[in-house]
């Protein structure tokens, strides 16, 4: 009895979560007439795969995809490059002003993006970086959260490993590259995964920092496409599917990492 109740509850909740997304897929394959029919179409009689092609003729959707890949990919690479290095320094080095700098770093966690939005826009306009990749990427090259995560992960690595390598005459950077970095692989996977998904989905900054359609990322390009052609819901749905597929695939492949990652970030 109790068990049946639990299953019902979980099944209903799961349907509420998944059904809208399945409807999005169905909508993306309907004809325009089907999207407007009085009785909603559950699944189109003949799926209109051509909707996906039509999207590319109505908007520079190819550009959106490339831009999203470059921006989210570039930011993810930068995080993988910088966050562990900075985390390593705070985990294993003693130096003047260490605690001050660490507090100054953690304080940036309290600064929501909207606070930086206006000054960053002014800065980018001044540099002529509106509508450029560098304008979209540079504000997110690293963040305190990733650095903190890496520091926590590197701290338990025994100092002896580092001392031994120093005695063997390894350079400081080689110690980081050869000894520290290989041990952080699980944390790097989580960091890369989360950074990519968040940046792939990011909406506010690409909206502010682009004015030409050719430089928009998918979330922004799709939203403004929908404002222009707001009755063509089958095309908006097709664009949404394109936006969603990479994160869905990444999630299915790395589901365990993902759940562990959330738990890891949540419980310090």
């Amino acid at each position: 009895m109790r068990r049946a109740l639990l299953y019902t509850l979980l099944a209903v909740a799961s349907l509420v979560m998944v059904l809208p997304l399945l409807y999005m897929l169905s909508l993306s394959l309907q004809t325009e007439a089907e999207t407007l029919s009085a009785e909603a179409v559950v699944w189109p009689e003949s799926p209109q795969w051509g909707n996906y092609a039509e999207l590319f003729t109505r908007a520079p959707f190819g550009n959106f995809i490339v831009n999203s890949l470059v921006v989210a990919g570039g930011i993810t690479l930068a995080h993988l490059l910088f966050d562990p290095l900075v985390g390593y320094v705070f985990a294993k080095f003693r130096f003047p002003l260490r605690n001050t700098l660490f507090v100054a770093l953690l304080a940036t966690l309290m600064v929501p993006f909207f606070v930086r939005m206006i000054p960053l826009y002014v800065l980018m306009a001044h540099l002529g970086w509106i509508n450029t990749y560098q304008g979209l990427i540079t504000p997110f090259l690293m963040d305190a959260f990733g650095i903190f995560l890496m520091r926590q992960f590197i701290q338990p690595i025994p100092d002896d490993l580092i001392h031994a390598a120093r005695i063997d005459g390894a350079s400081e950077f080689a110690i980081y590259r050869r000894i520290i970095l290989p041990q952080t692989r699980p944390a790097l996977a989580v960091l890369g995964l989360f950074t990519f998904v968040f940046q792939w989905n990011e909406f506010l900054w690409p909206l502010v920092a682009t004015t030409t359609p050719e430089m928009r990322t998918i979330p922004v390009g799709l939203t403004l496409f929908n404002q222009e052609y707001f009755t063509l819901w089958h095309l908006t749905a097709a664009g949404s599917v394109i936006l969603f597929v990479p994160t869905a695939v990444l999630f299915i492949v790395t589901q365990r990492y993902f759940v562990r990652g959330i738990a890891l970030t949540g419980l310090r």
Partner: protein
Amino acid sequence: MSVLRPRTLSARYARTAYLFLLPAILFFAAFFYVPIGNVVSTSLMSGPSADRFTGLGNYAQALSDPAVRHSFLVTAGFALIVVAGSIVLGLGLAMALDQPLRGRVAFRVMLLVPYLTSVAIVGLLWRNILDPELGVLNRTLVALGLPEQQWLNTSPLLTIAAVTLWQNVGYTMVLFLAGLQGIPETFHEAAKIDGADAWHRFWRITLPLLAPTTLFVSVMAVISGLQAFGQAYIITNGGPGDATDLSVFHIFNVAFRARDFGYASAQSVLLLIVIVAFTLIQLRAGRRGEVQY
């Protein structure tokens, strides 16, 4: 000996540390600390190119501007619903999943899927579903002979908060699940032997021991709820009227549609103060609560 060749070992390590830190120091200075300084200094300016000094004029204006006050209230209401919903629904689902059930992993995956979507998908998809004429929900309701819904007109704030919960509740569920799994089984067993029923065990064991997770969830939900933007931009355009004029959406419009950077900056600083104050109050309250256990 030259300055560049440090004498002691610790000085050499310090030099290495600073060398490794250099990109980060430059980045956080250029993209966090300088912009924060600039938003404060811009907030003291007025005029279309924000070059006329007005002191605290923008702040005085913002505090007495009915539109700004209204958007603060709207945002507070939105955040309140999202926080309460995240805790109640997230904890409820986590407790349901924290049982020896078949298919737990599949349920967890399905519940977490909306969390991976962009706010653009969430906004566009639900605007389509809820659209009074074209939306799938009303077309289905009419076909079934049921009354139509007008939720985006009758209770827009609650509706966009519910849509936000649809996206986020899987995340809080995973956090609570991790918290639940950290509670030793022996506590529940001991309480059972002492004759405590499930209700008592929930209030006296589960909830107190989950306090750190609940604190974290509520801090995160307040921070993200107070800076929601896409929901208003995509689903409601702040309307109907100004019923869903969330603060960041309001600031965005003042800055990029009305082109008043000074006034928008002052409002950003005010919202930042509210967010930081809320976070500090919650953390302090949480710390006090923890002492008892």
